[in-house]
């Protein structure tokens, strides 16, 4: 695959929604250990709403409009902190891809980097805070390093994100509900980092197909 258009992106969202649904209980369990146990349910609800939104057919316009639709839907349906964070992430993707109808590997990496910046700004989180940022920072670095091929870029991103998500376990949470737990948050993986990894893994699968 050379380029991602809205058609592929729709498949990605469809895949992501299915993966999140399948892993909903896992995400909830991870969240229950260090938070309020609703991350899986929230994400499932949000992506189900996005699917519903996209059911009607392609979003008119460029990729900017497409991402904006996803972002707004996540904002108003996820419910937890992941709503504004992922919602804001997709809104930023929308802003950065305004006027474009397709993405190649490098431009996808740049786009995700911009989305990550929005998450960091909004959540005021830095690497090491035990958040989704911990998965996304190494993922973006790997994507940028992977070069031109879309499949290679996304696979690098997904692998880095998965590894980083696993590596959130020894960290002590400093943001969100989990930060209330202090040292007790150590030993559990961060649910947000995991959902980020799931999103990137599903994207990689689409691009490798």
């Amino acid at each position, binding site marked *: 695959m050379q380029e991602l258009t809205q058609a592929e992106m729709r498949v990605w969202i469809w895949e992501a929604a299915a993966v999140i649904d399948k892993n909903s209980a896992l995400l909830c369990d991870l969240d229950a250990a260090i938070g309020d146990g*609703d991350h899986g349910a*929230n994400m499932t*609800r949000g992506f189900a709403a996005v699917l519903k939104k996209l059911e009607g057919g392609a979003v008119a316009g460029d990729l900017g409009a497409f991402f904006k639709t996803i972002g*707004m839907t996540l*904002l*108003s*349906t*996820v*419910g*937890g*902190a*992941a*709503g*504004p*964070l992922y*919602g*804001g992430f997709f809104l930023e993707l929308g802003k950065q891809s305004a006027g474009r109808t397709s993405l190649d590997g490098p431009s996808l990496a740049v786009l995700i980097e911009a989305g990550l910046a929005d998450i960091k700004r*909004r*959540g005021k989180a830095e690497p090491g805070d035990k958040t989704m940022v911990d998965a996304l920072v190494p993922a973006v670095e790997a994507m940028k390093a992977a070069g031109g091929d879309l499949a290679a870029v996304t696979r690098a991103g997904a692998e880095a994100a998965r590894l980083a998500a696993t590596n959130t376990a020894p960290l002590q949470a400093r943001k*969100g*509900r989990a930060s209330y737990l202090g040292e007790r948050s150590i030993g559990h993986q961060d649910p947000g980092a995991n959902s980020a990894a799931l999103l990137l893994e599903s994207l990689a699968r689409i691009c490798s197909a």
Partner: protein
Amino acid sequence: MIGIVLVSHSRKLALAIQEMVLQMVGPDFPIAVAAGVGDEHEELGTDAVHISEVLLPFCQGDGAVVLMDLGSAVLSAQTALELLDPDLVPDPALKLRLCPAPIVEASVAAAVAASVGGDLDTVADEARVALAPKEAQLEEAGVSASPPPAAEPVRSAGDTREVDVVVDNPHGLHARPAATLVQLVNRFQSDVQLINRSANRGPSSARSLTSVALLQIRKGDEIRFSISGEDARSAADAIRALADDRFGESGEGPTPRPQMPVRAGKEEGGGIPISEGIAIGRPLALNAVLPDFGDDVAGTPEREKEKLDEALRQVAGDLRRPDLPNGVATEILAAQALVLGDPVLLAAVGSRLAAGQCSAAAAWRAETEALAASYAALEDDYLRARAADLRDIAARVLRVLAGGGKALRIQPDPPAILLAGELLPSEAMACDPSRVLGVVANAGSPSAHAAIIIRSLGIPMVVDGSVDFAAFAPDVLLAIDGGSGEVWVDPDPVRLAAIEARRQEILAMRAAVDSVKTAPAVTSDGQSIEILANVGSADDAARARDNGAEGVGLLRTEFLYLGLKDMPDEEKQAQSLAAILANLGAGPVVIRTPDIGADKPLAFMPTAFEHNPFLGVRGLRLSLRHPDFFASNLRAILRAGVERDVWIMFPMVTAPDEMRQARAFAEAAHRDLEKAGVDHRWPVKLGMMVEVPAAAMMIERFAGLADFLSIGTNDLTQYLLAAERGNGDLDALQDAAHPAVLRAIHEICGKAGEAGCHVSVCGDGASDPLVSALMIGAGVRSLSVRPNQLALIKAQVRAVSIEALRALTRDAMRCDSAAEAREIAKKELGSLSSPG
């Protein structure tokens, strides 16, 4: 006004906070909820898009403080700001503040600050420090723990006043009374500092809810307000008045005494017609007739104090015996009773007395009048209305002090037309009809108790708010027409002659009417109408007999119980009833079991507080809940009526099953008496009042259960039109001539006729010639009227034909309003019956 937006994961939580805030600052306060997630916002979570939509109108208005609960609520609120359309909201920071304060405490603090006109920063500041009182309370750290906002005393020019108060509120100055205080203080320019002297906290600004809360004022605490500024005096008066009202908690949600509407007359001009008849004479201010409460020192300060205490006790006793017929009464009385026990007032009166040179009456009058004046000067409607209560209660006490408790008599010599601000029931009762020619009051309503009494005395009365008594020269000649509401001041000779002619005409008509007293009430086309009397006392009974009543359609029994501390035994009840029956002429007597309830509570039968006593446990509902009392009522009636054609009627019947139970009670009463070998009447007819719309609509379901029906038009009208009796604002609705009432009566008569059931009308409508004509047209063949209307109603019956009345009522039932129905009835009856 700055608003509040509540952002919460839980919609229920936010709605509950919203409710609490609205309860505190009033229902119009702009507080919005942006909470929950999902289609109905019923799931836990926050929705940035929704929050943004809720925020938008506040951005386009005065702005809002945004209060959030946990975690993602903050993130979502921040995101919501970014979602606002920059074209509509160029700079959200100008209109919105996300405030990190705890949501519950901050909501209350911010709402109070906003409700008194605080700007965005002030409101946000109030919210931000809202946790301080709780912290201080838990740490017992005192005020210094967190500096209250906006508390710097501002020394301004003008007066300085101090107001000392001992807080009497059960929970101290908790949030609600504190909020009331802060709102009041913010109406004034003056700086108001408050000190909790008992706890040695303060001074703090009374403008801030938070700083007031920080003072942790509890019941019994002595607090001092220091007020300085241009309007210190009026601020001090207002604070004093509010404190005397226990910071608005004097009676858990009392509605203020309704301000009687002053409005243009229904007729050609002038005032509201209250009681028919024409009076011509010199005016006399009611105040001048009321006992003169001299300022002479009658004894030592101790003796005067004793006299006052005795008077207060007596009046307090009177107040526990409410004699007013509507729900407003209990609230008025509760408010008045509070004044009697008001510690601040009593202390002030006490110190006046202790100083000597002052009679109990003078001290009481001076202090109550000062208090009433400060109420009356306030801008707040509620507090202003309290002035009338205060003056009324003050007058009651003065009357007792002056007359040693003897009943008040109003007997002007020479006879005169009384001028009153508002005639009180006790004053109406005191009027001597041979000396009081008429009454003009500035305020009042035809359905007020005083009006009913004045009508029963046959004294003409008009309510006209525009009459300025103070402007009258002492020798002015006044003429009033209680039928039209007109008032003439110094009428010219031609006008006066016309009025006098009209007066003679009315007198002649009354005389003519009197002459038909003993004649049968038969229409010109041969239909005879039964004319019965409503009786509530031995005097009424005698008047009913003298005025030619064919029987009693309603004998009220409430008087047997009202005002008694202990439940009268069966023997006592039977004796009192027998005394009334002895005064009656021939004919059946319908005795109604007690129609009491929360609006007319009995001392020996405590009832739970009801928000709307008229829709509460009253009449038969109450009787069925007190089986012993009810059984004794029924046995007393059966015993007293042994020699008479006594019928028993149950009030406020709603369901057939209630009638079944009531019948069972009556039968049990009969069996008990029989077993005990006591003489009594049996069998008797058992019937019901039709006043609840449900009963009226399904009256055929009562066939076989009720031997007779009596329509209570007053209550039926109030319930059908959802217009409370005694609410002067709703007079136009409280009229039995309303087409809806006529239709109900027509329906009831039709169905009862099929079942062969006797129907009478005993409500006030039957005593109104126009309405009684419409009722006859609707099918009523028996009317029970006030004793002094007997002859008039009878004369009218004799002058009309059933045929014409049927047509008239048919038209009236098609009208849109009572006024319209009255209009056509008036026209029609004018041509049907020639006066005299």
